[in-house]
């Protein structure tokens, strides 16, 4: 098993048509179905949705002092919006879940393996 992060991002400055209440309900319904499926097959580990990037705060320590600034990492144009953590047999299985989530939310999904969670040679004990 390998552990993967399926993440979706918001893009700064990108205008999206706001969802109607009906559409929102449908999307949540679809996601709930996928999550049930993930749980039933033992793939689901954790999932969460984040507040807007404006709610972020960045902390950096320089010379022993913690400097706190308002807002997300200034350099990035794309911000994490939500994610799933799943266990899958291989990348094809992970891509299969990603396709389902992408279809439900109408946004691309990035699939990335976690380090140290796989039973690959040298990765475990």
């Amino acid at each position: 098993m390998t552990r993967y992060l399926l993440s979706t991002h918001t893009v700064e400055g990108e205008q999206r048509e706001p969802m109607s209440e009906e559409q929102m309900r449908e999307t949540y319904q679809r996601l709930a179905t996928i999550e049930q499926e993930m749980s039933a097959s033992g793939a689901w580990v954790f999932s969460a949705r984040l507040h807007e990037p404006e709610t972020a705060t960045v902390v950096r320590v320089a010379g022993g002092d913690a400097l706190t600034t308002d807002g997300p990492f200034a350099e990035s144009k794309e911000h994490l919006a939500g994610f799933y953590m799943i266990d899958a047999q291989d990348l094809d299985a992970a891509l299969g879940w990603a396709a389902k989530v992408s279809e439900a939310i109408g946004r691309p999904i990035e699939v990335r393996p976690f380090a140290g969670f796989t039973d690959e040679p040298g990765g475990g004990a």
Partner: protein
Amino acid sequence: MSPAAVPEGDLDAPAGIDPAQVGRIFREQSGRSVAALIRVLGDIDLAEDAVQDAFAVALRRWPTDGLPPNPGGWITTTARNRAIDRLRRESRGRELLAELALLAPGDEEVGMTEEEGPVDDDRLRLIFTCCHPALSGEAQVALTLRLLGGLSTEEVARAFLVAEPTMAKRLVRAKNKIKAARIPYRVPADHDLPSRLAPVLAVIYLIYNAGLARPEEPLLCAEAIRLARILSALMPDEPEVAGLLALLLLTESRRPARLRANGSLAVLAEQDRALWDRPLIDEGQAIVRRCLRRNHPGPYQLQAAINAVHADATTFEETDWQQIVALYDRLLELAPTPVVALNRAIAVGELDGPVAAFELVAELDLEGYQPFHAARADLLQRLGRAEEAAREYELAAALAPTEAEREFLRRGGRAGRRSRPSAAS
């Protein structure tokens, strides 16, 4: 180890072979061995290193001892033994050792036969791993040539005009991704096959065309055809695999006639058809006929069919352009790209004349695509618009990827059409 570092074999030895032959046999056989060892070891680097070790042993032994009766099996067995040696030195290798024992010496017989067997299945798994859509196109090509083709990193780098360290980095990054993201080592399920087969075919086609563009790298064309043959033997029910093989064979049949003595490109109209390779044409056309009977056309099969029609004509003038345009019509339905439309327009130019073709070409948005400018130049020339033609020839020549094509375009396109445009001297 370079072949030059190996002492000459005893010339009196009954089956002694020289290091260059060892290298060739190794390249032909190593894909099987690498594929088999990756399955057992689950580790590409370890498999590669082990097969490399076996190569060093072969370079030492074969020139004096002669070729073993089953070179493929010998390589797999020797590489497996080397892998065992390496693993014994590492703690993590203990559990793998038990699995390696399963690849018993008895298995090596399978490596020799051309029938489908577990070893051949390994090569099929490996090509789907190498051409996984999660890898970049560049990485797909490099991995395929390195692992299945048995080319050295230096050879792969040279073939694609990339510095060796750059290519080495590209290969390392791709192999790391396969391991970390766990790109599977298996043939995709039937429902995934159409989408997963497409990059495999594209990689083989790209390798062939890279060889065609660079006559100094003859290895690539041969390698692409070899891979297409392997794939078609392993997937006999996939019409597009057969189509690709036929397309490559028919294109290859004309390669001896593609260049003039001065290295300039000879296009179809100018080629000495006596130089075409008849056995390759016969083989390619036989595959095309089987594809037609099966009647599941796809882009590779249609391109193969177009080439089969060309191969039927003993002179350029005898070409059945009606049939070629009809085939392009079908190709355009399946692959409605401007490049296909351009090639169809060129065929229309031969069937209905340059006026009709020029109208079709004018509708295409292919500015900066070299064959587009070359086609425009040819049509303008035939329309008697010599000055505009000369400008297009210059444009096309500046964009031409190879010296042969530049030469062809600088001399003002195909011979015997019109006088040579003065500006393109």
